[in-house]
């Protein structure tokens, strides 16, 4: 039985804590008697027979007929799946989506369905490379569907293949992929790593247009999302659920399949990352030292290649199918069971080690905007009830925050950094002044539609993702970051953790309480 997550009070005997620092690590000693470390639960065991669990879910769905009963020969079937932003790191083959879609295709073949399209639900994310599609779906599906054009990627900028299904009582227009809208049945294959994902969000964001996404991907929604991991207190999710109702009432029949994975993110030799520091063996310490020293010496590009080459030994922990809302509630139960750690009270300073990856840089570069998005968007939002750090407190992140961008994946991010952040870091101001220009820029549109670039508006969304954290914190400090890049984002650079604590004292005094969110792996702090 895996041990649950817990809160460690730091005393003089507590060893230094592991912090991610982009493609590197550091060990930081936290002040005794006023620091605590929140550890996630140990990784849950995977299902012994995931294939059988999937088949069972398809035969015994929640609040819907079995999938077999929904399939018939002359129907139009569309299968959508989560894109390369999940899982992080990418999971070892076979990916859960491959297992699910293969099972669905087996049933479709038995029913004689021959009009099947498979669509990557990437929203405004970058198009997946073919090798990524192969990795996620497996060679058999890719080779059977890609050559005849029935495996493709959603295009949120293709007016001829978008259609409006209606609008919510608040005037939000649901505009989605035409093939999806015109289908007799849409099956969604999801991998759920955090509570934010899944539910109506899968289709309502994954196959929507920019116009549709802009109703909830905006500063006002994100600043009123408390938190991203708690959909009942998230303005973003409220909007998405309203749009989901429009989809349910006016759209195709949707058969949602959601799967969860455990937190077993790192294979050998990186297993020490998932261990608690005082339980490190001599071998773990040696491995840490050797790895850390090697990474220090490696060029950034080489280190990045190593990390992005990691294939996580994730195991499927659950799978549910059927009516979207019923399925998602069960998924959330599974996710929370693994992720929730009860924490007593808030803290003056929250420390976060920001890793090399975020949902928006698979196989790519963690540029400064994504550092902000990961720290203030994702990691800060790993809470339920109230944030780990008190309002006006200090968030300290560790990351090199190099001014480095992937020119193919993130072209509009470069301009956003140069132009928009030079003008303002206020999400509301940039939304009003700059967003439309980036969203409608023909060059970005061309790169998104034909290359492998994120949509022109995406850096705005990444920035809005951190809007709640940005608004909440009294100061944000990045340790070891490129000072120019850090200042450009409105944050404070510090060379060491001690310097950061010193800088933080201006805001939280000389003896603040400190909480470190231990990463890896994933946890959601339920703050009482």
């Amino acid at each position, binding site marked *: 039985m895996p041990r649950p997550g817990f809160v460690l009070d730091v005393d003089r005997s507590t060893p230094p804590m592991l912090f991610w620092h982009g493609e590197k690590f550091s060990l930081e000693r936290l002040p005794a008697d006023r620091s605590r470390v929140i550890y996630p639960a140990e990784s849950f065991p995977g299902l012994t027979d995931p294939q059988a669990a999937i088949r069972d879910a398809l035969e015994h769905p929640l609040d819907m007929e079995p999938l077999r009963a929904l399939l018939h020969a002359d129907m139009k079937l569309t299968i959508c799946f989560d894109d390369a932003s999940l899982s992080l790191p990418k999971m070892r083959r076979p990916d859960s989506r491959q297992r699910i879609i293969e099972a669905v295709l087996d049933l479709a073949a038995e029913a004689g369905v021959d009009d099947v399209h498979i669509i990557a639900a990437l929203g405004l994310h970058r198009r997946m490379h073919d090798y990524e599609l192969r990795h996620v779906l497996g060679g058999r599906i890719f080779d059977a569907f890609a050559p005849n054009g029935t495996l493709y990627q959603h295009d949120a900028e293709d007016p001829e293949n978008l259609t409006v299904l209606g609008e919510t009582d608040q005037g939000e227009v649901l505009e989605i992929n035409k093939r999806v809208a015109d289908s007799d049945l849409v099956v969604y294959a999801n991998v759920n790593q955090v509570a934010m994902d899944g539910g109506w969000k899968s289709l309502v964001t994954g196959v929507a247009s920019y116009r549709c996404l802009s109703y909830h991907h905006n500063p006002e929604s994100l600043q009123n999302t408390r938190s991203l991991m708690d959909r009942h207190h998230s303005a973003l999710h409220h909007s998405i659920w309203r749009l989901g109702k429009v989809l349910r009432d006016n759209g195709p029949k949707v058969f949602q399949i959601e799967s969860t994975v455990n937190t077993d993110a790192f294979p050998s030799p990186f297993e020490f990352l998932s261990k608690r520091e005082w339980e490190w063996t001599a071998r773990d310490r040696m491995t840490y030292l050797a790895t850390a020293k090697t990474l220090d010496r490696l060029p950034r590009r080489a280190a990045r290649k190593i990390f992005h080459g990691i294939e996580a030994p994730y195991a499927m922990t659950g799978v549910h199918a059927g009516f979207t809302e019923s399925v998602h509630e069960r998924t959330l139960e599974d996710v929370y069971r693994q992720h929730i750690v009860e924490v007593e009270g808030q803290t003056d300073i929250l420390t976060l080690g920001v890793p090399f990856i975020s949902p928006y840089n698979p196989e790519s570069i963690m540029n400064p905007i994504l550092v902000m998005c990961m720290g203030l968007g994702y990691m800060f939002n790993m809470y339920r009830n109230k944030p780990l750090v008190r309002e006006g407190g200090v968030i300290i992140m560790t990351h090199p925050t190099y001014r480095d961008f992937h020119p193919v994946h993130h072209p509009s991010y*470069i*301009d956003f950094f*140069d*132009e928009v952040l030079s003008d303002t870091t206020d999400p509301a101001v940039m939304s009003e002044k700059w967003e439309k*220009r980036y969203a409608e*820029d*023909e*060059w970005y549109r*061309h790169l998104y539609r034909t290359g492998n670039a994120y949509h022109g508006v995406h850096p705005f969304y990444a920035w809005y993702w951190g809007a709640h954290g940005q608004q909440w914190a009294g100061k944000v400090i990045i340790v070891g970051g490129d000072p120019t890049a850090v200042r450009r984002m409105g944050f404070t650079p510090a060379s060491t953790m001690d310097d950061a604590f010193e800088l933080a004292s201006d805001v939280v005094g000389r003896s603040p309480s400190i909480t470190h969110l231990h990463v890896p792996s994933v946890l959601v702090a339920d703050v009482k």
Partner: protein
Amino acid sequence: MKALQVRHNVRRFGAARLLSVTSPRTSARIAPVDLRNVEDPAEPSGSGWVKVRNRLAGICGSDIALIDGHASTYFEDFVSFPFIPGHEIVGELENGERVVIEPVLGHAARGSVPPWDGAAPADGDDYAHLVRGHLKPGIQTGFCCSTGGGWARWFWAHESQLHTVPDEMSDERAVLVEPLAGSVHAALIAAQHTNHHLTDRDSPIFAVLGAGTMGLGAIAAIRGAVPNARIIAGARYPHQMRFAKGFGADVVAPGDEVSRAVRRMSGAHRIGASLSSGAHATINAVGDSASLALSINITRPRGATVLLGMPGESKLDLTPLWHREVALLGAYTYGTEQIEGNDVRTFDLAMALANTIEAERLLSATYRLDQHVEALAHAASAGRRGAVKIAFDVREDQ
């Protein structure tokens, strides 16, 4: 009289050129420019010559290029050694009248027939007079051994070169008039080329690369001449960025971000190193090969790239120039401009511009002639040291 004089010394030119890369100060010390007692230049033949006592004399990029051996060999036949440099001059006539000098030694100064009545010294389409007549060769005051130049107590100027400085204009402002005249000329050439066969002409895009004195002047001049212009400035240092913004640039970006800024403003696509469209006109006030290539690639097809300030030898792939039909134009000095059908002297426009932008803000430091090593080193690394224009102050020597 005491004067800074440049002699033709190939070895010292070569050493200065080598050292200019690593140490501007050592380069300035080794360069063949020395403070020495020189014979007073004899009054040139012909009528109209007056003695001008120098007050302030600026150090131009072309002065530095000639002194440290970077200037093109093209000029060897257009200068006469030994010469006293200095052509950005505010001085004083014997009657106490203050003047700025339009330094080109034109037809009138050389006893040739001007191309038309009222022509400015740099007007015309035949440069033969520059090496003929009763003066030694020299394109301008400051490069001709017959007249002397600004880096001395006094020199000979022809009446065709004189522009009276109003009483209310300070020396510090007046010394910027000559470089600003060059900027105005380039801006007007660029503006002319936004009129034909190009889209979005109502609010044309201008890119200005380089934010030294002339680049900054060009930004201000464009803003004055084309009020609806959208101006993107490439600047390297923070103080240059502040000036560029203050003088009317809409967007200021470091050099390596200019291409992206032009793309954003023009809504162009990027095709390899080039933009599908781009600026209607680009003014290049840098002059090196990389900046020239950039200028052509960010100028829209059938637009214009204007070279402001003295470029050197460049290695350039001309294929983009050919394919994009970009006009590559020089903007040497100034002369007579056409404004709404009327002939206007560029210097008059520059006087007005100097007042508009309070040009004395660009004068960062002045030195005595005997401090020339420090002065030249400062001018050679002005941007890096937070400066714009460096000048010699000769007023105490009078």
